[in-house]
């Protein structure tokens, strides 16, 4: 078997079987399940409150019938017929409130008595009463039902959202923008979490091998290129495995729960297919390029550490870079037009955090998007090459100096090797 694959397989197997991987995969699932559970619990609570029936006290038969209609989701306690009974029922909390209504000269005068339980239902009740009043008056004026319909037809008001883009007015699909912003927000957080986790994993892998001198044995068995990319591939495969597990769990959960009323309430208005489509587009490219870039950097910084204990210190610069990107991204969410945001969106290390928000807000042209993608991918390739060049000499340096000192010494070893190779050639 090719040594590259031997290394890839070893990294993958070792990590997949570790307890840490299980925790890493499960913890977001537990958090999601916890939040879903909490949301479900509170929504149940909320739904339960207006479950108390109301009482309707009206001389007019029509009003009485209005509320005993099945289509209402309000339950009417038909046994209560006087205000006094209603007050007593309200006191012992067997009803949520009561409606007193009478018709005086074709005008409905009504009063809704409640302990703020029925505020949500109040507009509905008023609308029902208004409709009934219209019918009463139409009757008085001898109007045909068609005429009533014609009169009560509301005016049409359509919201057309537009966007000012490079001096022209552009149509904006509001739902689309909402989804894109949500996607950008989601990707931002996901990149952050994945960078933190996977930068840690690869830096530890490398520093561990260096600290235990396994590195010297490996680099006298396989080329540094095979080792470096084998490790990267292994770690990226672990990432894909984690994503695949989420996809499967998410898919299964959706199929299982989609018929539940609660889920439909939440997901009902959202087009899942279009969200997925959105995520599969630019966003996915930014996600992968972003994580890859930071993982490469982490391997580089990990190879600077002398001991396992120094890993956290070594990856600190990466965490700061990622945090900077993340906060500029959050800023971009509220001010996507800002020129500072525009500049950051083209700096490869920050592109994955910032550009998705600009795409969502529609403040960047397609050309700009592709420029940033090429920039990011190109940069990822360049830092891979540079990291690899340093990697070989980094792993031979065991010093207690700071990172910069180590980079300097690594540079001089690299120069010395390069000079030697040139002389030999």
């Amino acid at each position, binding site marked *: 078997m090719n040594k590259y694959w031997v290394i890839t397989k070893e990294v993958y197997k070792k990590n997949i079987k570790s307890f840490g991987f299980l925790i890493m995969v499960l913890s977001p699932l537990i958090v999601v399940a916890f939040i879903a559970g909490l949301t479900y619990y509170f929504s149940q609570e909320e739904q339960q409150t207006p479950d108390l029936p109301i009482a309707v006290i009206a001389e007019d038969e029509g009003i009485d019938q209005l509320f005993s209609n099945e289509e209402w989701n309000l339950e009417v306690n038909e046994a209560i017929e006087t205000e006094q009974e209603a007050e007593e029922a309200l006191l012992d909390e067997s009803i949520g409130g009561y409606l007193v209504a009478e018709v005086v000269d074709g005008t409905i005068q009504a009063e809704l008595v409640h302990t703020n339980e029925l505020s949500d239902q109040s507009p509905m009740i008023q609308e029902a009463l208004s409709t009934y009043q219209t019918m009463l008056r139409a009757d008085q004026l001898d109007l045909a039902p068609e005429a009533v319909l014609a009169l009560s037809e509301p005016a049409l008001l359509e919201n057309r959202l537009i966007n000012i883009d490079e001096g022209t007015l552009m149509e904006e699909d509001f739902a689309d923008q909402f989804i894109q912003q949500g996607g950008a927000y989601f990707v931002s957080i996901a990149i952050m979490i994945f960078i933190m986790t996977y930068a840690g994993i690869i830096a530890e892998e490398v520093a561990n091998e260096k600290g*235990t*001198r396994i590195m*010297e044995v490996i680099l006298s*068995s396989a*080329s540094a290129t095979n080792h470096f990319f084998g490790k990267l591939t292994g770690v990226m495969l672990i990432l894909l495995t984690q994503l695949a597990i989420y996809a499967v769990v998410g898919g299964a959960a959706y199929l299982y729960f989609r018929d539940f009323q609660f889920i439909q309430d939440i997901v009902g208005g959202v087009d899942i297919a279009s969200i997925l489509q959105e995520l599969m587009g630019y966003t996915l490219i930014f996600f992968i390029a972003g994580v890859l870039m930071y993982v490469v950097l982490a391997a580089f910084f990990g190879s600077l550490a002398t001991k396992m204990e120094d890993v956290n210190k070594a990856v600190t610069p990466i965490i700061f870079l990622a945090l900077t990107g993340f906060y500029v991204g959050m800023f971009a969410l509220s001010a996507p037009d800002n020129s500072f945001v525009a500049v950051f969106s083209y700096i490869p290390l920050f592109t994955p955090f910032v550009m998705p928000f600009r795409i969502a807000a529609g403040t960047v042209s397609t050309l700009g998007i592709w420029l940033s993608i090429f920039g990011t991918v190109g940069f990822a390739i360049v830092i891979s090459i540079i990291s690899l060049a340093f990697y070989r000499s980094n792993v*031979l340096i065991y010093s207690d100096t700071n990172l910069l000192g180590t980079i300097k010494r690594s540079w001089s070893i690299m120069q*010395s090797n390069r000079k*030697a190779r040139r*002389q030999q050639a």
Partner: protein
Amino acid sequence: MLEVKDIQKTFGSLTAVDDLNFTIKPGEIMGLIGQNGAGKTTTFRIILKLLTPDKGDVFWNEHHLTTKTFDKIGYLPEERGLYPKVSIENQLLYFAQLRGKKKSEIKPLIDQWLDRFEVKGKKTDKVKTLSKGNQQKVQLISTLIHQPELIILDEPFSGLDPVNAELLEDGIREAKANGACIIFSSHNMNNIEELCDSLIMLKDGKPVLNGTVRDIRQQFGRTKLFLESDLTPEELHLFPGVKSVEKTNDGIDVVYLTETEDGKAIFNAATKDGYIPTFSQQPPTLEEIFKRLAGEKNE
């Protein structure tokens, strides 16, 4: 056959290795000695292609040693390390695979190697559960199990008790019998004298000794005389060429001479009445040579 020709390596103003030449034929063992920082590890790293020399070349079987030779190498670095959370078996398989072996080739060999080196523990045990000595033995096995033709051991004896050192010596001898070229460094001159066919001593990157152990000792002359006779230290001091006289706990005089020839006059005087129990004129031990050379200032 390993040939190192005119190797030179500098880091900035520091010369790590200079003008180094040696050849190790199949079935030969070479010892590399020198103080810390003398250039031993740099030499190993150059052979292993971890570093590129400024001048000179390394040849394997008359061709440039390249990454293609890697599968034939067994290397034990000075500071020991294994993956703590991986089982002994998987660890050995991984390193052997990196040396181009198939899992199926190595798997049947593991038990017998663990037995031979008396590793205490099952092959499914994680390395971190083993004692330090046993971990060291597992690493030795990983250096040798793929039957390398070029074996490079950086301080293999450090930290081993005499019983385990013996096991390692046996392992090295067996590899030699199988025709491997072996090079190792050590601070223990006894190991070098017992095992090595030839040796090189480095000082500040330059070879100051190069040759077989016997030749090197002889070139310093038989200047150390062990003597048990009626001659008193005072009388011994009167002989020409006597630098100093020491008495050991066993009552034997150790006479340090300037020249080998200086011993003859003492022999004649000591044996003028016939039998004496001890007259042994020897070259200095490797350890003494080492200390003497290491102590000398550079010219």
